[in-house]
Structures are given as structure tokens and as C-alpha cells.
């Protein structure tokens, strides 16, 4: 069964550094998402992306975040200047179309020191 793949599985970075989290959505999916989960808390929506532009974003997704689909397969989340509170599990997800189920990757655990 096709799946969403995320790399790396774990990333450690120093406060103030830029990080790029990478995702390869399922190949025939059209809508892409980033979510985050701070340890022990619920899964929070960050941003959705369709047709090469952001379609929806939450208040968490401020100017330090950006997303990009640089080619036909990758979908990236960039955090420009990481803060300690950015430490979380970041999940990428995709759907084939509106009304279809969301499929999640295994996540990237980001630790900011």
C-alpha cells in the first residue's frame, strides 16, 4: 500500500538555526498538510497546500514557517529560526481529493536545544 514518507525521522538543531523537514506524499494525492504534536498533547493543524499554494493555515503557522513543493514529489516545511518551543513531532499528510481520508507519514521528531 502506498504511504507518505518523511525524512529525517529525528532531527536535533540548535535554537536559531533553520531546519527543513521533508515529505513525499502519496503519488496520486493532490492535497498536502503539515501537522505538529508537542509531546503529550493533541495533534495540531499547521497548513494545507493545494495546486502549488497554501489553501489554509492556522495561527501557529506564522512568518517563521514556510512550505514548498520544489518538484513533483517532495513537500517541505521550513522553519527559519527555530525556538525551543518548536520542539515537537511534525507530521506530513496527504489526501487524494476532498472528502477522502487523510494519510499520515511516520513523523519527524524535531528537538531544538
Amino acid at each position, binding site marked *: 500500500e502506498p504511504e507518505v514518507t518523511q525524512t529525517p525521522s529525528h532531527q536535533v538543531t540548535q535554537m536559531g538555526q533553520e531546519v527543513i523537514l521533508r515529505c513525499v506524499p502519496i503519488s496520486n494525492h493532490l492535497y498536502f*498538510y503539515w501537522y505538529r*504534536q508537542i509531546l503529550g498533547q493533541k*495533534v495540531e493543524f499547521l497548513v494545507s497546500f493545494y495546486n502549488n499554494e497554501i*489553501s489554509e493555515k492556522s495561527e501557529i503557522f506564522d512568518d517563521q514557517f514556510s512550505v514548498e513543493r520544489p518538484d513533483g514529489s517532495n513537500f517541505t516545511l521550513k522553519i527559519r529560526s527555530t525556538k525551543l518551543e518548536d520542539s515537537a513531532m511534525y507530521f506530513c499528510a496527504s489526501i487524494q481529493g476532498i*472528502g477522502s481520508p487523510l494519510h499520515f507519514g511516520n513523523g519527524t521528531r524535531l528537538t531544538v536545544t
Partner: protein
Amino acid sequence: GIQVEQSPPDLILQEGANSTLRCNFSDSVNNLQWFHQNPWGQLINLFYIPSGTKQNGRLSATTVATERYSLLYISSSQTTDSGVYFCAVVKQAGTALIFGKGTTLSVSS
């Protein structure tokens, strides 16, 4: 925005017991999914169930959209069922999936 409330927040079971997890939502929804987050943090898609009843092995789910709730049934629980169960909803087609806070299930042998 839409509110998603899950109960109970924590559940401790002996292996072999049955359980029911509940998800209430504050508005009509276009989509509802149940996920299991295993101890390694992976989110496993259990059911896509905006309405009606579905079964998959020992698990089943029912969503009564008109009354704004969904139930997840786990029968003959096993230790591998341990983890966090999340309910998540989409209020309007094309918008984001919004998660509840989850039910943490611990099954002991």
C-alpha cells in the same frame, strides 16, 4: 471553530476486556476519522466514517452525524491496542482535519 471532545481521557483495561471510546463534536461535519497513535508515535488510520457503522476485525465504529457523536468499540482488547486514540473531524469539505485531545488506552496482561 469546531470543538472535538473525547472521553474518557484515560482508560485502563485488562487484556480481553471490551471498551467504548466516545467523540462528540460541536457542529455538523463533512468527514470524521479515528486514528491510533502507537507507542512509537505513528498515527494509524483506523476508520474513515463520516456516518454509519464500519467494522474491521476487533474494532468497529459508529458515527451518528445528526446527533454529533462517534463511538469506537474495541473488543477483546490486547496489549498491542495500547496507545492514544484520536478522533478528528472536517467541518467543511476542503478544510483541515481537527483533532480531539485523545483517549489514552493502557491494556495490561
